[in-house]
């Protein structure tokens, strides 16, 4: 039995650790197109901001692969999978055999066909290398008249999760930032309008220019170097750096000819197995169940990648685990405004009930969204994030909240508000 894992982030490591619980001896190989041992991609904005040193980027310690008897092939791209011969093809034409394969290749930044996107100093922001390149630019003093190095002004395209992280990182090192968002609000997929406005106001207070309901249609330049952007309304903004942070899409390009079924992401069953026996997928690349909507969709978040990886790994090595599904949730903090949101945050259609406490003057906001007397979504901004996890638990377990729904907005909402039986069940038994 030979296990092969393509990818080296949350899902891959979750799988490798699960395999090693069941099978200590058989070969496990991890292939990554990056030169690094496993690190945390969400930390690249912290690296850029100078909030962590390089040694804090790593998700597992140096000896992780050796201690777990895992072979690694780093800095090599997989260009295809031959499911008949059970081989992965590498960019250098090498073939790696497998008996069980996990595809955990994550997401890849979506870059729309903006004119001038191939210019220098235009980056996406999802990998260590991106942060490294931007750090180099922001820390090198100018050494040409054109201002290469010594970045003073940046335009970030997209005010979603990744865009906001890029803004935060650049702002922290003293770069002047304008962010351009197509939607009418920042973080529009994670928050509702009122919550978005709190975040946007805080960004503007910090000196960041936020432009919404607009888009960059061209990246202009001097020679091959980006020197500005043109917006849909013809407005021009000068800059020395452009970051495209519109979103990520499942990284499945190399599987086109493989016969592995791909919809929006790789289609998997509840065992995280694809349509090809012995081939599994997990993490941002996979399309698994959203328990709130009942649909299968990629939900690119760390906790679900970790869980799906662990389930795939267990099933690959003789276990019998079932993925019960997940739902989107995110914790993002623009300095001074922590936000946590989960599930459905922008309910459309019939049957939803919202409870809202809007204290935007103090930067606090709480909204709980119910359907059929169960929580299906929540938005928390400011101090209200403190016990957010209780809501996560109530969503996950689809607990009817009829008996205590008038208490959900309380600053101190907690177990004392739950029915006694439920509370005792939760607090007085082993979990």
């Amino acid at each position, binding site marked *: 039995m030979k296990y092969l894992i393509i990818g080296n982030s949350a899902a891959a490591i979750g799988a490798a650790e699960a395999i090693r619980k069941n099978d200590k001896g058989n070969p496990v190989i991890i292939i990554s197109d990056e030169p690094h041992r496993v690190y945390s991609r969400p930390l690249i904005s912290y690296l850029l901001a100078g909030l962590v040193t390089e040694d804090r980027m790593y998700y597992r310690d140096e000896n992780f692969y050796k201690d777990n008897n895992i072979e690694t092939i780093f800095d090599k791209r997989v260009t295809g999978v031959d499911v008949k011969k059970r081989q992965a093809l590498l960019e250098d034409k090498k073939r790696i055999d497998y008996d069980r394969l996990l595809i955990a290749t994550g997401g890849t930044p979506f870059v729309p066909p903006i004119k001038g996107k191939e210019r220098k100093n235009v980056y996406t922001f999802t990998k260590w290398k991106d942060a490294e390149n931007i750090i180099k630019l922001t820390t090198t003093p100018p050494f040409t008249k054109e201002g290469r190095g010594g970045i003073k002004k940046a335009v970030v395209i997209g005010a979603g999760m990744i865009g906001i992280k890029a803004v935060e990182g650049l702002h922290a090192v003293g770069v002047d930032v304008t962010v351009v968002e197509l939607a009418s609000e920042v973080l529009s997929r994670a928050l509702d309008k009122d919550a978005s406005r709190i975040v946007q106001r805080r960004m503007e207070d910090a000196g960041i220019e936020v432009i919404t309901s607009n888009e960059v249609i061209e990246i202009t330049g001097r020679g091959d170097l980006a020197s500005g952007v043109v917006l849909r309304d013809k407005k021009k903004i000068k800059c020395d750096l452009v970051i495209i942070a519109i979103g990520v899409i499942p990284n499945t390009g190399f599987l086109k000819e493989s016969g592995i079924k791909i919809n929006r992401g790789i289609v998997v069953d509840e065992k995280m197995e694809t349509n090809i026996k012995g081939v599994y997928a997990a993490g941002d690349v996979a399309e698994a169940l959203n328990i709130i909507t009942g649909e299968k969709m990629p939900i690119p978040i760390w906790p679900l990648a970790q869980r799906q990886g662990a389930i795939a790994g267990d099933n690959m090595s003789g276990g019998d685990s079932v993925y019960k599904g997940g739902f989107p949730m995110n914790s993002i903090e623009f300095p001074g405004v922590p936000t946590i949101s989960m599930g459905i945050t922008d309910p459309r259609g019939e049957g939803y009930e919202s409870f809202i406490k809007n204290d935007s003057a103090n930067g606090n906001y709480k909204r709980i969204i119910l359907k059929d007397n169960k929580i299906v979504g929540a938005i928390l901004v400011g101090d209200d*994030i403190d016990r957010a996890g209780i809501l*996560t638990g109530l969503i996950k377990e689809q607990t009817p909240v009829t008996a205590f729904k008038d208490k959900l907005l309380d600053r101190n909402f907690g177990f004392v508000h739950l029915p006694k039986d439920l509370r005792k069940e939760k607090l007085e038994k082993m979990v």
Partner: protein
Amino acid sequence: MKIVYPKEEVCMACRLCEVACITEHSRSKDTIKAYKKEKPAPLSRTLVEEIFPGLSVSVNCRHCSDAPCIEACITGAMHRKPDGRVVVNEYKCVGCWMCVMACPFGAIKRNQYKIEGQGARGKGQGLKIKLSSKCDLCPDRSIPACVEACPNRVMAYEERN
């Protein structure tokens, strides 16, 4: 494994468990110094929830066998010790609050304070530290401080099924 279980019927909301927890997790291990002098002041890792009068219960980490906080942690800071305890490696924690979002018991607190100093790349005075803070079952003691401090023996440190 042994963890701390509360019994709401006998809880008096005296919050001595919180006091004991703060003291135990202070540098001086002295209540008055911990409250009045230590900066940052330690947080209690157990929280007495209360509806006055009559109902109160002390809630802390269940050290779940399948811990959502560990899978949510983006840095690997939240981890399980060989003895089963779920604890935070403060060197790795960046205060992203993913664990706060994930913990179904709301048992993880945000510990935030400012220190003098510089960021990794020499930026900024008065650095803001953000750390997750949670029950570690008092590794230096045979019985957790909250259990020992409870005057009404509400808190049980034991193994249950």
